């Protein structure tokens, strides 16, 4: 089992991360990746200038590691990567990249899905949108909570 969890203040490139992840494959037959990208429009409909993810040195990375460990214990995956951007993110740029590998594809799909559901609700970030009109804090949307509630409570 290999788990690679990173918090990055620099832009992240899903293509390069998938390349790094795939190069390490051994017997795995299935690889699933997810990347989430900053939208071009803020929640209030105005053009987004920047999405800002504030993080906490220590607690943010630890929350990501806890979520990744939970995924590896619940699903038959052999390898996982979780890379999250923090700081100022431009529209279109990647916010988060997740990859999972397994012998059979169902485990890789479910683990990536689970990782994203928990990251979107529980990872220690505080998010705000900056537009020409100012700055506005945002919280998880209802759909995020509904997605996270699909899974049995984590054992951690």
């Amino acid at each position, binding site marked *: 089992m290999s788990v690679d969890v990173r918090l990055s203040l620099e832009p992240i490139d899903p293509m390069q991360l998938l390349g790094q992840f795939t190069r390490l494959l051994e017997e795995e037959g299935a690889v699933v990746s997810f990347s989430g990208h900053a939208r071009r429009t803020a929640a209030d409909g105005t053009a987004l200038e920047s999405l800002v993810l504030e993080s906490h040195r220590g*607690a943010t990375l630890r929350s990501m590691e806890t979520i990744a460990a939970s995924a590896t214990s619940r699903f038959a995956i052999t390898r996982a990567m979780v890379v999250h951007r923090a700081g100022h993110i431009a529209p279109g740029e990647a916010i988060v990249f997740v990859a999972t590998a397994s012998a059979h594809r169902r485990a890789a799909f479910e683990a990536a899905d689970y990782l994203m559901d928990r990251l979107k609700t529980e990872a*220690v970030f505080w998010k705000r949108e900056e537009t020409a009109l100012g700055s506005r804090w945002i919280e998880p949307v209802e759909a995020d909570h509904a997605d996270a509630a699909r899974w049995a409570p984590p054992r951690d």
Partner: protein
Amino acid sequence: MSATKDCITVTVELCGRLADAGDPFVSVAIPAAGCTAAELLACVAHDCPALKDDIDLGRVKVCITDAVVSAEARLLPHDRIALFPPVSGG
């Protein structure tokens, strides 16, 4: 010794929108022997009126080093302490 002499000032980091009112680091007086997370929040509510409402509504959690702790957890003056509003997720 008076009650005042038993206190020590610790620096508390304010995360997310808790820092909107000003400096992201505030100084708070806590008992020199340490206190619980709940007691720290009471001290912060007293020293930083701008945070009182969020604290009273249970919207603020205490983080020591790299983990959110329960209300009963004890913290010591040398701990790295932060206050978290509800997280937004990634």
